[in-house]
């Protein structure tokens, strides 16, 4: 894990928000860790005080090692009127590789305005992993793999 405390907290929070492990989100050996891109995107689009509030809140939750960390993150971050929308945008970013503009009609939908974070990010969107597939337009498989179910 990173020596950057912001990144450590961001990845830890992201794991709770997405349902993936910190190792899946920030692999020990990764040439282009998308987590770094996503944290930079977050910081570029959200006021520093609010980013700090989210990361610090998570750090405090994690430090207490609560029995149900999901519940704490929901109550303290997702249900918070200021932090909640940003946290939900972090989930969208991990799954769809998109940073959606926060200042637009809610709720955000698949047709809302936003920006694809990067080509690298597109190829690592978690929605495709959740579908046990690959990003459309980015397959590392070979001819005929589609004739049988994916390895679980």
């Amino acid at each position: 894990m990173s020596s950057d405390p912001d990144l450590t907290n961001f990845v830890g929070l992201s794991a709770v928000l997405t349902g993936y492990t910190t190792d899946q989100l920030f692999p020990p050996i990764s040439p282009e860790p998308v987590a770094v891109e996503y944290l930079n995107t977050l910081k570029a689009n959200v006021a520093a005080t609010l980013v700090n509030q989210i990361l610090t809140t998570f750090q405090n939750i994690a430090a207490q090692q609560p029995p149900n960390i999901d519940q704490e993150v929901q109550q303290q971050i997702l249900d918070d009127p200021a932090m909640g929308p940003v946290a939900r945008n972090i989930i969208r970013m991990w799954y769809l590789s998109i940073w959606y503009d926060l200042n637009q009609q809610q709720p955000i939908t698949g047709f809302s305005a936003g920006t694809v974070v990067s080509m690298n990010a597109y190829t690592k969107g978690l929605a495709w992993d959740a579908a046990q597939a690959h990003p459309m337009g980015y397959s590392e498989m070979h001819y005929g793999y589609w004739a049988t179910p994916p390895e679980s």
Partner: protein
Amino acid sequence: MSAQKNYDVVIVGAGIAGAIAAYKLAQAGKSVLILDGGAEVPPDRSAYMEKFYLSMAKTPESPYPNDADDPRPLVLDINTWKDRPPTGYFVQNGPLPFASTYERVAGGTTWHWMGTSLRLLPNDFRIQSMYGHGVDWPYDYNELQPWYGRAEWEIGVAANVADQEYHGLTFSDPNDPSKPYNYPMPGILQAYLDTQLAAKIGNLTIEGQQITVSPTPQARNSIPFDSRRVCAGNTNCIPICPIQAKYDATIHIAKAQNLGVDVWYKTVVYSLSVDKTSGLISSVNYKQYDDPSGPATGEGSVSAGLYIMAAHAIETPKILLNSATNELPNGVANSSTQVGKNLMDHPVQLSWALMTDPLYPFRGPLSTSGIESLRDGDFRKQHAPFRMEIGNEGWNWANNDPWNSVNEFIAAGQFGSTLKSNLNSLFIRQFRFGSLIEQMPLETNCIVPSKQYTDNLGIPRPEISYDLDDYTKAGFADARDVAVQLFDVMGATDHTTVDPANSAAFTYQGQTYILNGAGHVMGTYRMGADRTQFVLDANQQSYDHSNLFMLGSGVFPSVGTANPTLTIAATTLKVVDYIIRSVLK
């Protein structure tokens, strides 16, 4: 511009028809020039891939340049087709929107075609005689059959003959009808999803036809072919195959150029001139640009012995009609007054559902199978036939997934492992049918050059009137009924939604349906035996100007239910053979 050579042939349009024609003419020793409005073919597709990856709406056109000087319709234009002034390239009069699009770039729309390479059925060539609807072709399946075989070898189609011998389709060696035929490559493996659907449908008869899930003939490589790679299942044939395992017309542009064919890019043809004495075409007139959103940087004419229009079924009639003069007030090649009329598509009925068991979509080519059973039958006396394409992309077309469902679940408060497992359960069970309905020709479905709206170069934009007749609508309704019936038989849950406020909604017998385009732009300069009713004779030669030929799906008198590209390639090869043997000998 480069010093002008004496060309035997000038071709307008570097899509599949123009590129194959240029290649074959060059092989026969003819000097050929192609004019294309778009920028030249890029050295590799990385810039297009980057544009695709970074596009928010991954529409068919998303990887390609959108140049003001060479404009084309966009998929999302349909949401605002009634706006005035028009926000898209088309000026649409309705009552329904024309829902299909095309590319104006070298290689044409084959950049984002599916690769589906079905032949038309024998009865598709004689629907008036057999069923009393539409019009017959000026020749039959047997006459086109060898050209289908040659086209399949030219572009590289993967299929097994045994899977394709339905509805009277026959196959034999193009050069020796007594010998059997083989496609150049073995068929593409069917997706797991297809075999699951086939098993669940089981033994079922609808409207007198046994329902069969058939492997689709596809112009993508199942083995290395023509120096191109094998399909890796990127699930992205539309908008762009990342590895060119699927045929596109840039392959024939390169082959033609290797034989000395000249291609002038960024050269937008806007009219043809006619010699008053001979009645022959005397020149093609064009504008050129440098900066794709800047002004025209040049204007000129080019002449040749023979002219071939291959600019697809909207731009070709636009150019012909825009060529009107005092002597030819109806435009060029239009003594029949049929140029621009009988615009057709394959209206698509989308039905989507969730299976009980996993199907694992989003893997493999976008579609590997279809139900071809209802493409023909006695029911064609009552309603239009259709093929049911089985999608491998879940609800991507139907519901903009994964984007829509991910957002919907997050907006509903889901996160963490609940979100992940709910998305998994949803996505792995998604599937859809896209039924492509045969549309009947209507004279009132037409494209004319707009008198009011021009593009950035001052060229009139296409103004379109479009509707579906009741026979076509009845086929559309039947396609929906059959989809529901199949969902029931398979134990799948229908999730199809119909929003009456949709800009492409229509009603038929009290039910509301949503019109989707197949991207199949057809009709508008059709061939037929009667010069008062058709623009071209059976050799796709203008009745009015003997040195003018036209290629592409615009020549189809009626359209059947086969995706048109293979028939475009087959008719092109047939016509170019005629030109070489009989016209330019």
